[in-house]
Each structure stands twice: as structure tokens, then as C-alpha cells.
């Protein structure tokens, strides 16, 4: 059962193919990630799925409703947290939620109850009645998440949910996302350019670059598909040990780095956990003294590098977004 299906979805801005023949599917009740560097086309995809932007060509369905011919039904089924702030900072948190509840035509008796419920979920109950301009960035973000949940959507879109938040707030937003995916039985589609975020949160992801899908699977499968774990060893006489190890087939690659006091040896192997004891055995027999051992699994960063030959860089956010943030920052005044 799919919550979202797209087929060759495309959006052109002049000559730029911001979204280029994207076909993907999102399963019901999963956390799905659109991962890619800035300018990859993630926001454009979300906006098309949310009926805010018309595709140039291609097809997309959200909860079984066509995004072009059944806009109202799509809008009813989704909640969305935009990349850029979209609350009314001249209103209080509660007033923002009340606006949302009414514009989504929620019944009077559920309205109040639901407002308290979502405020509680994002731990803003005690700040509900102060103006949003006096909220911190993290509080604003949480309010937007609460608002996106108000009308019991089947799918929640989160566009860069933790952009610009400090490490601690990011963690707590992650926990909210996990919790509401479980508790509210909601399909979550999030975009991010943070590898660790996608890895930690998502059941499945697509990696997008220059508007194109370059991989579509679970993070674990993607990492396994490029194979090899990396074992690092700190040894006193690396060169000798390296020569010894060349005789063993299970080691697929080696690198030696000189670091002042000792030498570090990086071995790339499959199934790293099982290989460490074997390597220790060999070291023991050769009389090599190992100071320490480390094991690193490939990350999504390595996956991205593998498929594109580049690393994901954290480029500047767009000029306009920057401006919107600045204006709001200024309006917030002193706290």
C-alpha cells in the first residue's frame, strides 16, 4: 500500500530541470526521506506534491488522489511544515493553531482538545499564549510541526525540519518525528541534506542530485550495496604489518597514515566485526603490538560519494530564504 506514487514527475524553470523525471513511491506509515544537496530539487518535489506548484509534466498521487485533478482531497490528506517559517508572528501560538483548525474546517468540540493535544506533544503548552515573535527558532519549528499535525493528516511533509537548529534541539525534533510516526500512525516524508538525519530517521530514502533520483532504498541496503567496512589499527610498525597482511584475500584494500607517535592502518573488509579477531590473531603471531582498533561502517556520505563522485556540501541557503529569515529575526526583536 503506497501513500505516494510519482511517475516521471518533472518541473522546469526555463531551461533548468529542477525536478527531472522523478519516479518514487512512499509506503504507508513509513518515514521516507528525500536526501540531497542544496538545490537538488527536494523542496520543488514537496511543493508539487502539496499542490502549491504545478508540475511541467509527469504524474503524482497522494493518498490515491491525483495532485492536479483532485487538489482539495490532496490538501485535506496532508500536513506540511515548510522549509521557511510560515507562522504568523503577530499572533500567539494558540491563535496560529486556531487559525489552522478553522481553515481546515475542524469541528468546534475537537478543535480545542486537539490544540491542547498537539501543544502537549511538542511541549509548548506553557508558551501557547505568547506571541510567536517571542519564540526561539526551535520553538517556532515545533509549533509548525504541531500545526502540521492539527487536522489528523495521513501524510506529513517536513521540509528540512531541523535546518538552522542547534544540536540539542535537532535531537528533540528527531524524537518528536519518531514518536508521532508511531503514535499518530502518520506517513512522514521529510527532506534533508543532513546524512545523519536521513540515516537515523528514515525507513527508506531516495537520494536526489540535480533533480534526478540516483538511489532509492533503505539506508541499510544502500550502505551495504557499496559494501566494505573500515577497520583502523594503531600499530608501532605499520609498514611491516602491512606487508604481512597483503597475503590475506579477505582484506580488500589498505592505507597507511603516519601519525607522529604511531602509524594508523586502514583496512577495508566485508563483515568487519568478524574480521577483527582474525586480524588480532595475525598480529599476535607476528608479534605486532596493536594499540587500538576501530571499526567504521560506511555512511550515507560514502553512498553519495559512491554514486556521484562528490561529497554533499553544505552550501548557503538561497538568497530569498535568507532574506525571509532575516526579516523574521528582526521582527522578533529582543527576547
Amino acid at each position, binding site marked *: 500500500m503506497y501513500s505516494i506514487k510519482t511517475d516521471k514527475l518533472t518541473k522546469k524553470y526555463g531551461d533548468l530541470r529542477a525536478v527531472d523525471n522523478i519516479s518514487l513511491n512512499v509506503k504507508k506509515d513509513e518515514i521516507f526521506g528525500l536526501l540531497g544537496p542544496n538545490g537538488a530539487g527536494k523542496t520543488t518535489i514537496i*511543493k508539487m506534491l*502539496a*499542490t*502549491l*506548484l*504545478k508540475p511541467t509534466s509527469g504524474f503524482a498521487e497522494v493518498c490515491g488522489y491525483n495532485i492536479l485533478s483532485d487538489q*482539495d*482531497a490532496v*490538501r*485535506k490528506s*496532508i500536513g*506540511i511544515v*515548510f522549509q*521557511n*517559517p*510560515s*507562522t*504568523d*508572528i*503577530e*499572533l500567539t501560538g494558540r*491563535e496560529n493553531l*486556531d*487559525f*489552522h483548525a*478553522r*481553515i*481546515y*474546517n475542524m469541528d468546534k468540540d475537537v478543535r480545542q482538545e486537539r490544540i491542547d493535544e498537539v501543544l502537549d506533544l511538542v511541549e509548548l503548552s506553557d508558551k501557547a499564549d505568547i506571541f510567536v515573535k517571542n519564540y526561539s527558532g526551535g520553538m517556532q519549528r515545533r509549533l509548525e510541526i504541531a*500545526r502540521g499535525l492539527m487536522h489528523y493528516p495521513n501524510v506529513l511533509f517536513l521540509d528540512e525540519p531541523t535546518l538552522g537548529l542547534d544540536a540539542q534541539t535537532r535531537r528533540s525534533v528527531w524524537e518528536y518525528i519518531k514518536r508521532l510516526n508511531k503514535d499518530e500512525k502518520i506517513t512522514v516524508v521529510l527532506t534533508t541534506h543532513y546524512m545523519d538525519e536521513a540515516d537515523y530517521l528514515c525507513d527508506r530514502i531516495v537520494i536526489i542530485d540535480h533533480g534526478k533520483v540516483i538511489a532509492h532504498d533503505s539506508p541499510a541496503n544502500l550502505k551495504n550495496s557499496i559494501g566494505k567496512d573500515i577497520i583502523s589499527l594503531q600499530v608501532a610498525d605499520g609498514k611491516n604489518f602491512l606487508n604481512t597482511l597483503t597475503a590475506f584475500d579477505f582484506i580488500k584494500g589498505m592505507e597507511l597514515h603516519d601519525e607522529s607517535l604511531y602509524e594508523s592502518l586502514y583496512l577495508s573488509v566485508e563483515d568487519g566485526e568478524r574480521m577483527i579477531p582474525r586480524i588480532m590473531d595475525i598480529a599476535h603471531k607476528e608479534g605486532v603490538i596493536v594499540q587500538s582498533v576501530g571499526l567504521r561502517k560506511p555512511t550515507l556520505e560514502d553512498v553519495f560519494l559512491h554514486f556521484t563522485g562528490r561529497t554533499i556540501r553544505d552550501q548557503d541557503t538561497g538568497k*530569498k530564504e535568507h532574506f*525571509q529569515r532575516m*526579516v*523574521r529575526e528582526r*521582527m522578533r526583536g529582543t527576547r
Partner: protein
Amino acid sequence: MKLHFNAIYIIWLREMTRFFRAKSRVIGSLAMPLFFLVILGFGFNASIRFSDIPPEIDYIDFLAPGIIGMALLFDSISSGLTVLMDKQFGFLKEIMVAPVDRFSIVIGKTAGGVTTALIQGILILLISLVIGVKITGVVGFLSAIVFMILISVSFVCLGLIFASKMEDMHGFQLITRLFAFPVFLLSGAFFPLDNLPVWLQYLTYMNPLTYGVDGLRHSLIGITQFSVTLDLLVLVCFSTLMIILSTYLFSGIEVD
């Protein structure tokens, strides 16, 4: 097309909340029309006689409906600014992604703009009474409110039309002011139109505010250039056209 009353109500309520929280805006926008009324009113009253104004009517009585029309024009058209602010601050996305017919959004926005304009119009009318402007009576007062509403609907929607085609707030203010000045100068707000050169008279006939001011004047002081029926007819047609056009243009907004 379907009316979503909950949505209309909350869009209207938000405009009201923001309006009443910005007290300086209320006072600021009352000041200019009142300056005009007091200075021009008492100034001309003493020294100039327009031959087209019946002798029993003071110039300031003649002027007051015109000033109300002017205040409505400027306040209404500037309510398009709230749309641009919502664009700038991102809130327009929240509105546009909601499962609500675009017509209802326009109606809600219009209701908000009309109410704020109406509050100002009525305040100016009351202040005019205090400073000695004479009006015909209660029926006139009520019929003036009908005209105030029609004028406001027309120009609030016109403001929305401008706003749906623009991004920049300063640009919007510049353009709408450029547009509004000739409209109010050629509406008969300040002087009777009968003795204008013929080509200018034609321009005034094409100006919807002319009929608004004429209707207000008929309601409040009982003199009229056209007939009230014509005034009503023109304004109803024009405001309907503006609502349709602004809904159409609003539906085409893509927010980013």
C-alpha cells in the same frame, strides 16, 4: 465554487486581530483625511463659493462625503499590502495549502479589508459630525454605509489584484499611490464636476469612485449629480467584476 464559512471567518478574524493590535495604523490613517477635512473645509468655507453648490450647503458639508470616499479608497487599496506581507513572511503558504476554495480566501480577505476601511469611514463621519458637518438624518447615515461598503469592496479587491501580480511592498505602495491620486482627484471629492472641461468630465465618468462619492453625497447631504440608482448600479457591477477578477488572479498565485 464553494463557500467555506469557517475559513472566511478565520481569515477575517485574523485581519481584525492584527488591525486592532496595530493601533498606530488606525490613528495614522485617520490623520490624513481629517487634516484635509479640517483645513480645506474651514479654509475654503470662508473664502470660496462654488456656483454649483446650493447656497444653503456649506463647503465643509459638501467636502465631508468626498473625504470619506478618499479615506476609503486609500485604506481599501492598501489592504493588498497584507497579502504581500503574508508572502514575505511565509504565511501565505499556510493559507494557500489549505483545502479551501480560492474564492473563499478572497472573500475572507475582502471582508477583512472592508471592515477596517468601514471602521475608518464611520469614524471620520462621526468626527465630521462633531466638528459641525450637517447630514440629512439616520436613513442617510445607513444608506451612506451601503455606499461605503461598495466602495471598499471595489478597491480592496483592486488592491488584491495588484498584490497578486507583485512581490515587492515598496513597489506596491508606489504603484497604488500613483493609481489612487488621479482616482480621487477626479472623483468630485473636492469640487463639483459640472464645470470641468468636457474631456476631463469623460474621465470622471469612467471613474468608479465618482459614483461612490456621488452616492455618499446624496445619502449624507441630499445633493446628487447622477441618480442614486445609477450610482448603485455602477458600483455593484464594478465591485462584482473586481471580486471575480481578484479570485481568478488569486487562484494563479504560486507561492515560494
